[in-house]
């Protein structure tokens, strides 16, 4: 357990050095960002629509108990933009992007392609890991912003068309209480989550050894998803605590 954590820190240090050393070639970066970002849009849209609707419906049920249903706009806006949508984007994209990263790296590792790169004196950290880290770090804030828009729109639809609340009240609550700083916090969280999800996925992919065979790929994928999700949720608490506590 502690051994793995130490290994992870060493890996993070190498990866960060490779990431900051030289900017990866633009074409590789664009391709990776495209794969990570655009590939997740459909899944994310579906999830955020239901999450946004549900945020309205469920908080309505709670607020109604003490007659505060008019504050739904504020609650849906602040809760969504600051907390729910960044975490959802991170967990979902971790499940998709992170799993893909871990699987592809683990596949390269067990078919000894990484060693082949080293033999050709190409640094695999710089060649394989750095562009992926950059790509996900770019993609996730964009996805977070997209999730904010879709989520608030579906909260509005839920509040106005399903629960019959007043649309004007919802919008004025939103204007009054959700500011640019909340949006910035959400996007910043997305940035951090993107980097950490990619790092964890690359770490687990990179740890797969040839003797593990095909099962090693499965284990790496599974760990990338689970560890990514847990770390993002815990980190979200830490960041909220620092910012709002």
């Amino acid at each position, binding site marked *: 357990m502690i051994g793995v954590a130490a290994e992870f820190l060493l890996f993070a240090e190498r990866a960060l050095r490779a990431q900051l050393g030289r900017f990866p070639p633009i074409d590789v970066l664009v391709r990776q960002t495209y794969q990570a970002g655009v590939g997740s849009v459909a899944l994310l849209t579906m999830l955020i629509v239901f999450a946004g609707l*549900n945020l309205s419906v469920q908080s309505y049920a709670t607020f109604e108990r003490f007659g505060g249903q008019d504050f739904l706009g504020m609650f849906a806006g602040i809760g969504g933009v600051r907390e729910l949508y960044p975490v959802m984007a991170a967990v979902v994209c971790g499940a998709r992007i992170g799993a893909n990263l871990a699987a592809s790296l683990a596949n390269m590792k067990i078919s000894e392609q990484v060693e082949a790169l080293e033999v050709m004196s190409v640094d695999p950290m710089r060649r394989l890991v750095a562009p992926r880290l950059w790509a996900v770090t770019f993609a996730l804030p964009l996805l977070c912003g997209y999730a904010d828009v879709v989520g608030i729109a579906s909260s509005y639809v839920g509040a106005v068309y399903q629960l019959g609340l007043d649309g004007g009240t919802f919008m004025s609550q939103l204007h009054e209480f959700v500011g640019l700083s909340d949006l910035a916090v959400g996007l910043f969280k997305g940035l951090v989550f993107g980097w950490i999800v990619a790092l964890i996925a690359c770490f687990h992919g990179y740890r797969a050894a040839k003797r593990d065979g095909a099962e090693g*790929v*499965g284990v790496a994928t*599974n760990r990338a998803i689970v560890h990514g999700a847990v770390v993002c949720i815990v980190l979200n608490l830490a960041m909220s605590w620092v910012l709002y506590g």
Partner: protein
Amino acid sequence: MKWLLDSIANVGALAAFFGDVIGTALTRPRYVGETIRIMWVLVVRCIVPVGLAVAPVGAVISLQGLELFRMFGLDRLLSSLLGTAIFREYSPALASVMVAAQAGSSIAARIGTMRVRGQIDALAVMSVDPMRYVVVPGVIACAVVTPLLNVLTNVLGVASGWVFAVPLGGVDHGAFIEHLTAQITPADLWVGLGKCVLFGTSVGLIAGHLGMRVKGGAEAVGQAANDTVTQTIVLILLVDYVVSMALLGAGL
């Protein structure tokens, strides 16, 4: 268009698979020992990630909710928001998502690996029905373990919310407990547990379905494990929303 037709076909196949599983689960013989073994494995594998994922959510609700309620001087009411949110929504949904990520993907990978290695066909040759021996225990185990884990995460979520509300947030302990016990009804608990049974069953079903459909080699196994996670998360959120609407309509 093709995408649409494919997904309709997928839903249909899943429904047929569900019927098949129910039919098999209701008839004899049952492999009780195998089911209990899988349950134990699931509990051991899931308890830490599920706990770690749900506990911070209570803290975040306290943190943000306190700020909002302070504006109106209602911070004594925080625990009723926290309690209902944790018991009804976040604990069941998040616990099930983590069960899908941890257990669902490993069940799909296991069944897929058995399929690739021809072990499923070998079972059929020995006249052991693979549905009965491999799939049904997994589904039942998921359906039983998810609510059990949910009980734990309910406690963890409320406890972490308490930490951030009372010692760190300055809410009165008595008021916190009073509003918690006054607002949380047994119905809230049962709603959460019922959702977990539903979600757990769908985790097991999707994992079994995608695992049994694996064709080819190791990559297909990985793909099945991965698809299990994403498809279950979509299904969980969809079902969650439908259930919330239905309960709101029923006035529960």
